[in-house]
């Protein structure tokens, strides 16, 4: 580590190594162990998604994506993510503003409650909406009188997706805005800016990378959610199947290659998410440092 560079810098194989460094053999062994573990658990599965998807050639691969059922699943996934991500993004900003810009009792409880969906099984996330809007639920007779379908229909899928992605943006913004403090916003207000102007011109530019980070993670989960959506969807082909549910159907129909072809689309999306995430992480820490130095100055 650079912090300990004041000690004699030993190169591998040199007899005099730092007292706080491991022997080269231990180091090599640990690196090899870590890489082996990650290789078996992460790299091999990732490679095999694409290998299995392309097993029957490119023709078959692209044919899977011309299937109207696949296209419908892709469309529904975009609808579900397209509604739940903006909703949770708006909520995240609102909650972060209330929590970080004001003091009130029960704040920690509120933060815990916002995190709650992370500790609830996706299956239970689906179940709660089935209980509420499904056949035995309190709203069932009213809903069926008005011919509104929520469970085994698109609204249920949107609701379940919203539940499982609920905390992502909020939990990203709360620590960031807490660290940035209130002084810049207060200065803007004292100088005569309205509340909205303060938010748009001061807060939003300060948190844009953190916000984008939360949105990316939220979106990845929204598009990939399986358990919660599976419980509320009813698996009606062409109508209530998202991409992950469509993968399950293809797989259970013994169309393994087709299932992996569609899965490779989601795996690709996951890789894009990882790349964006790594890139934004760097921007985000720069963002935090910038406000910290401005506030200190």
């Amino acid at each position, binding site marked *: 580590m650079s912090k300990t560079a004041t000690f004699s810098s030993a190169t591998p194989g040199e007899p005099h190594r730092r007292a706080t460094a491991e022997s080269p053999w231990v180091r090599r062994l640990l690196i090899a162990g870590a890489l082996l573990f990650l290789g078996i658990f992460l790299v091999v599965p990732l490679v095999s998604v694409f290998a299995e998807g392309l097993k029957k050639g490119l023709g078959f691969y692209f044919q899977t994506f011309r299937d109207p059922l696949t296209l419908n699943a892709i469309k529904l996934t975009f609808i579900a993510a397209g509604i739940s991500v903006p909703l949770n993004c708006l909520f995240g900003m609102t909650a972060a503003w209330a929590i970080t*810009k004001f003091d*009130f009792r029960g704040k920690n409880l509120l933060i815990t409650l*916002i995190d709650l969906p992370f500790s609830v099984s996706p*299956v239970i996330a689906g179940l709660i909406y089935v209980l509420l809007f499904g056949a035995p639920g309190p709203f069932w007779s009213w809903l069926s009188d008005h011919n509104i379908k929520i469970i085994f229909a698109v609204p249920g899928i949107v609701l379940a997706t919203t539940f499982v992605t609920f905390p992502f943006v909020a939990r990203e913004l709360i620590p960031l805005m807490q660290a940035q403090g209130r002084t810049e916003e207060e200065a803007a207000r004292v100088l005569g800016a309205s509340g909205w102007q*303060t938010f748009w011109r001061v807060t939003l530019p300060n948190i844009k990378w953190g916000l984008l980070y939360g949105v990316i993670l939220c979106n990845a989960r929204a598009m990939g959610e399986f358990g919660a959506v599976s419980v509320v969807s009813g698996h009606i082909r062409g109508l209530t199947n998202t991409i992950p549910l469509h993968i399950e159907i293809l797989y259970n129909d013994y169309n393994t290659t087709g299932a992996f072809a569609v899965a490779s689309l989601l795996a690709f999306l996951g890789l894009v998410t990882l790349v964006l995430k790594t890139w934004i992480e760097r921007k985000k820490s720069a963002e935090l440092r910038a406000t910290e130095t401005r506030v200190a100055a």
Partner: protein
Amino acid sequence: MARNSLRVLPGFRLTLGCTLLYLSLIVLIPLAGVFVKTSTLSWEQFWHIVTAPRALASYRLSFGASFLAALVNVFFGIIVAWVLVRYQFFGKKVVDALVDMPFALPTAVAGITLTALYAPNGWIGQLLAPLGIKVAFTQLGVFIALTFIGLPFIVRTVQPVLEDFDPEIEEAAASLGANRWQTFWRVILPMLYPALLTGFSLAFARALGEYGSVIFIAGNMPMKTEITPLLIVSKLEQFDYAGATALAVVMLVGSFMILLTVNLFQWRSSRHLARL
């Protein structure tokens, strides 16, 4: 509160109101429905459902496999975090980014991929088959899937602690005559305990509720390879809503207890560290 009189920022009522409304509509009221629904069962009925042999077998598998998977992740998580923080090697940045893959890869994709890999004719399964080790469609498969999805939690909680580690502490240990292993075991590891506990509980809680990545590889044999979330789903598919809800209550209470216990430990250890 004194600060309220000095408040210059607007929107407190609006933002807090919207937050509470949205939280109640999406999370709190639907979750409360689980407990309301369960209260329609008598205590005997509830007890009968949640202690049925099939349910008990599913808890054993869910809790047991999740616990073991989280434990394995603690071991490898420390090594991976250590290697990423302390050593330089080719491709380190890519490896660092890849650690989050289980977060980014949808669970259904992970499920079918692990099943294909560990099936007797799969890439890894055919290496294990001559040794007599069966992974896919056994409890071992459940464990493998849960290890996969819990992998990032411990690495990501330990990594920042190691990065901020004051080198003087290790130098002091070394100058007092401790070798590297003693320094790690007696000095570094105890300081990682709070982070390890957080990571462990996050991985454990996530594994308990996991569904998508497990159901493909598990084979889903009742009494043998059926996890609790799957039992909930199969009860739902038979329109046994009361049964599904009773099991959901057991799972919810179980995972809240874990988080609560860990928070208590955390609180005590932070007070202990503060006194040092």
